[in-house]
């Protein structure tokens, strides 16, 4: 089986506090992997280690074929990342943001232009290419941030609560984009607090206090926990 993420005993300690406590799991290429857990369970910390933003205290593993302990910079060329906080430049226009991030990843000018045109077309946002990002409503910003994260055609995209505070319709549209990207072979690693979204995932893991308590397909988890929906599964595990 082709695993794009494979980690063993990944641990992060901040002083005496263990934020992530020896988690091990693997993610298959092309799947949508849901990374669930209560606030403070250690999801973001774990994700930051996988993205090369944070050094693991212990453990080993590979992301896109590169070592998480030593090859953080190589990992970065192959992944896309959308953080919990909106992090495009608000004082740049949509196009300028796309050009900047495309350029940083070493894309050629012509390629950047074609790619941003295509991505904006996909979210029917071509008319707003020259709008300042700061002037856009939250839903649009999040869709745009996702598009920018996939700009350089990464093998895997990490999304940290991408739909927090977004209305239900935009949330659905956002997940259409995620599934379209997954259908094209991009692996999606996503955290969320919305259990309806969890059901869209190929497999999900649930983190409690820095450990992975459960990992399986949504259907299998519901069966195991004897629950009607993911909501119940989550409540039973995290309580």
């Amino acid at each position: 089986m082709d695993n794009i993420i494979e980690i063993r005993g990944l641990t992060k300690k901040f002083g005496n506090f263990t934020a992530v406590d020896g988690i091990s799991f693997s993610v298959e290429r092309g799947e949508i992997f849901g990374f669930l857990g209560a606030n403070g369970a250690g999801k973001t910390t774990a994700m930051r280690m996988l993205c090369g933003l944070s050094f693991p205290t212990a453990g080993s593993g590979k992301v896109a074929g590169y070592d998480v302990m030593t090859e953080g910079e190589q990992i970065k060329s192959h992944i896309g990342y959308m953080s919990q906080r909106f992090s495009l430049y608000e004082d740049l226009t949509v196009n300028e943001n796309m050009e900047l991030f495309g350029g940083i990843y070493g894309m050629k000018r012509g390629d950047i232009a074609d790619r941003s045109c295509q991505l904006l077309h996909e979210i029917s946002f071509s008319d707003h290419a020259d709008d300042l990002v700061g002037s856009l409503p939250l839903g649009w910003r999040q869709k745009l941030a996702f598009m920018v994260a996939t700009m350089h055609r990464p093998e895997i995209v990490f999304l940290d609560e991408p739909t927090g505070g977004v209305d239900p319709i935009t949330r659905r549209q956002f997940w259409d984009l995620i599934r379209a990207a997954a259908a094209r072979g991009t692996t999606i690693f996503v955290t969320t607090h919305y259990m309806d979204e969890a059901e869209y995932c190929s497999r999900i893991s649930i983190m409690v206090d820095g450990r992975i308590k459960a990992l399986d397909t949504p259907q299998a988890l519901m069966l195991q926990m004897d629950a009607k929906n993911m909501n119940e599964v989550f409540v039973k595990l995290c309580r």
Partner: protein
Amino acid sequence: MSALGFLIKKEFIQFRRNRFVSRLVFLLPIIVMLIVPLVANMDVKGVNVAVVDMDRSGLSGRMVSHLEASKQLRARLVVTDYRQAYDLLEAGKVDVIVTIPEGCEQTQMLGRMPEIKIDANAVNATKSGLGSQYVIASLTPLLTDGSAVLSPSVRYFYNETLDYRFYMIPAFIIIIIMLICCFIPALNLVLEKEKGTIEQINVTPVSRMEFTLSKLIPYWIIGMVALTEAILTAGLVYGLWPEGSLASIYWAALVFALAMSGFAIAVVNISDTMQQCIFVMFFFVMLFMLMSGLLTPLDSMPQWAQWLTVAFPPRWFVGIMRAVYLKGTTLAELAPDFLALAVVATFFCIVAIVTYRKQK
């Protein structure tokens, strides 16, 4: 275009969009050069003098008229009671009291030097110090009989009129570059930290050096524009054009600007919030202003403090600027200072790159 090119382009777009900062940066040099040299003036004028004349003689009369004739002094009033003059000093109405003792004229006629008492209000140390010097200078010719006094003639080179403005203009140019190259890149970068956009950069493969350079280079260019504005203003308004070559000024300024913005980036790298960053910056900028020979001579500091200033970029640049501006010294003659400045600049840029952490 490389990643660095895209990042620099982004900095310029952001600079242009931030109307307030971009206007401020362009106006600051002109405003500073127009206003500050007029205000920051160490020449003392209008020292108020009260004369307590207890002699009431021809000599004391001549002394009063001499004091009145002085350009720097303002002989306020002539009283006979010391108490009265002292009250005025206490009330802050006079700065210096000159007491002419009884029998002053007689003493002088006997061929001795009469004792004139001078009391000065030293709350304003400069004014009282210089004020009493002026009093002594204006009275000396009267009290000594001309023949005995050897009066030396002094000629001041490079700033013939001893105009304090000319001494300070190069200093203000340095302060302008320091403000622009320290604060603007620092505020810009710390804002990226606070907004979280830096995280999006940290997750890309862009190198630490590329990102740091993208923060240094734009402000380097902007610093040179500010320098040009300041030189033009000083020349057109005060008629002070650099004696030395413009090339030497620009070369030195380029290295200095790099040192200051490198220092600023290093400060931001170790601070997490705007408050921290601004506080640390102010602390150092204050040290730079006070300990680099900008306002007071380096040699008057204790030895250990002079050693400390070796790492201060302005310490080297101040000497270079004054020498080139007022004396016309060439860069070749200033090679040791220039080299020292270059070493300090390289040091700060390396610190800026090394302290930037993409992975924590």
